[in-house]
């Protein structure tokens, strides 16, 4: 039987842990709002650029666009892994990392050389520990990702200092991140970024269409664009620049989406931790009372026993 002092110490410890987890839950809940607002604000640009790309693609010479060409043989691939800087978010990071490692192993088995770009301290630590040195590391940005970070990733793999996709040095780029489906649910997305697949942005992430989506009938082919569309300077240049912008946006959206998902995951994890702590504190209090009652009963029976012995 544990003694009263030990149980009391454990109750105190569980209660103070509960206080911390409850505070973290509330902090995450407040941060979710800011993170989802950021995703919401980024939507007009994201939707517009993908619509523009699709409507331009109908007129531009696609076979000469370097970012659209699928390389015949995949020799070198890049996997961009987006995780958080901090833990205590349930399976948020481990899901992404497990999937990324599976993907890397599968590619290496096919004889493809794989490079990793790690966003978030958790990914950096995980890969470095396993002897995989990420070619790019981004830390302290998982809660507030910047467009510049996305531009850097995209510059490296797309336009890339003589070793990017456009120069045929990288043959495939995959992005692994958590998508914030809603405040409480996250879905793991493994998205092929390059070669670019011509799916509308909303379709990839399963987003609700905008209320007044004037371009939708054109996309679906219901309405034909009357006459020609003018391009300045020319269709190929516009198409290429749109592709680059689209690529940057894909990374930016993944980063902010993952930031929103992180807060959602943390809130869920901290909520269940708080619930568990409450339950544990209740059980321990019950045990404490039982032990205390037991001690009192023993004491009384000892007194009564002693008195009875004196009477005799």
């Amino acid at each position: 039987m544990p003694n009263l002092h030990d149980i009391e110490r454990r109750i105190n410890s569980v209660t103070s842990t509960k206080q911390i987890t409850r505070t973290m839950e509330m902090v995450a809940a407040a941060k979710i709002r800011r993170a989802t607002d950021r995703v919401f604000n980024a939507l007009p640009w994201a939707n517009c650029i993908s619509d523009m790309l699709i409507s331009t693609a109908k007129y531009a010479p696609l076979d000469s666009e370097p970012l659209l060409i699928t390389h015949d043989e995949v020799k070198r691939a890049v996997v961009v892994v987006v995780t958080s800087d901090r833990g205590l978010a349930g399976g948020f990071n481990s899901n992404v990392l497990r999937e990324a490692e599976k993907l890397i192993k599968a590619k290496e088995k096919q004889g493809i050389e794989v490079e990793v770009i790690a966003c978030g301290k958790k990914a950096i630590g995980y890969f470095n520990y396993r002897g995989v040195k990420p070619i790019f590391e981004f830390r302290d940005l998982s809660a507030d990702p910047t467009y510049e970070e996305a531009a850097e990733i995209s510059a490296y793999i797309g336009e890339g200092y003589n070793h990017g996709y456009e120069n045929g040095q990288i043959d495939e780029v995959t992005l692994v991140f958590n998508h914030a489906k809603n405040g409480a649910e996250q879905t793991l997305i493994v998205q092929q970024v390059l070669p670019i697949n011509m799916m509308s942005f909303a379709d990839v992430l399963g987003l609700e269409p905008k209320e007044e989506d004037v371009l939708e009938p054109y996309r679906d082919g219901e309405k034909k664009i009357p006459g020609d569309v003018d391009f300045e300077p020319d269709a190929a240049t516009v198409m290429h620049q749109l592709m680059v912008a689209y690529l940057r946006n894909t990374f930016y959206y993944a980063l902010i989406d993952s930031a929103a998902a992180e807060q959602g995951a943390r809130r869920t994890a901290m909520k269940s931790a708080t619930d568990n702590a409450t339950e544990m504190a209740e059980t321990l209090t019950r045990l404490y009372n039982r032990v205390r009652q037991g001690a009192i009963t023993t004491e009384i029976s000892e007194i009564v026993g002693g008195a009875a012995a004196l009477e005799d």
Partner: protein
Amino acid sequence: MPKFRCTVAIPTRELFHGEIEYAQIPGSEGDLGVMAGHEMFVCTNRPGVLTLTLDEAGKDKRYFVTYGGFAQVLDNNLSVLARMGKDVDSIDVEELTAKAAKLREAIAQLEGKGDDQSTALLETHRTKLEWYDLQLKAVGAVK
């Protein structure tokens, strides 16, 4: 004159959404004027000032300084998507001058290093500095 719908957005947010009378866009090959019923086009933009006229008399104007990006007219809808953009009225000259000076120092420090990540960072810093200078120039031009 009939009005038409216009959206100005940057990757992080929407800067303007509403009905306008006339737009002057800094296209890569020269300025473009857009009114209702303009033929369809897609163009790349150069860094410059985008002017939106909201009323027929031309008194209610909005100025946005934009860096790169695209403009598209499709079915009487104008979308201007800039890489970076700001309402000229919201530019704080003093703050911006200080930021630009700090950035120049950071660039000078990075210039010696040759690794991939530093090169990428240097590129980002240079673009940012260009953007700050553009804003300062735009404030002088508009005000």
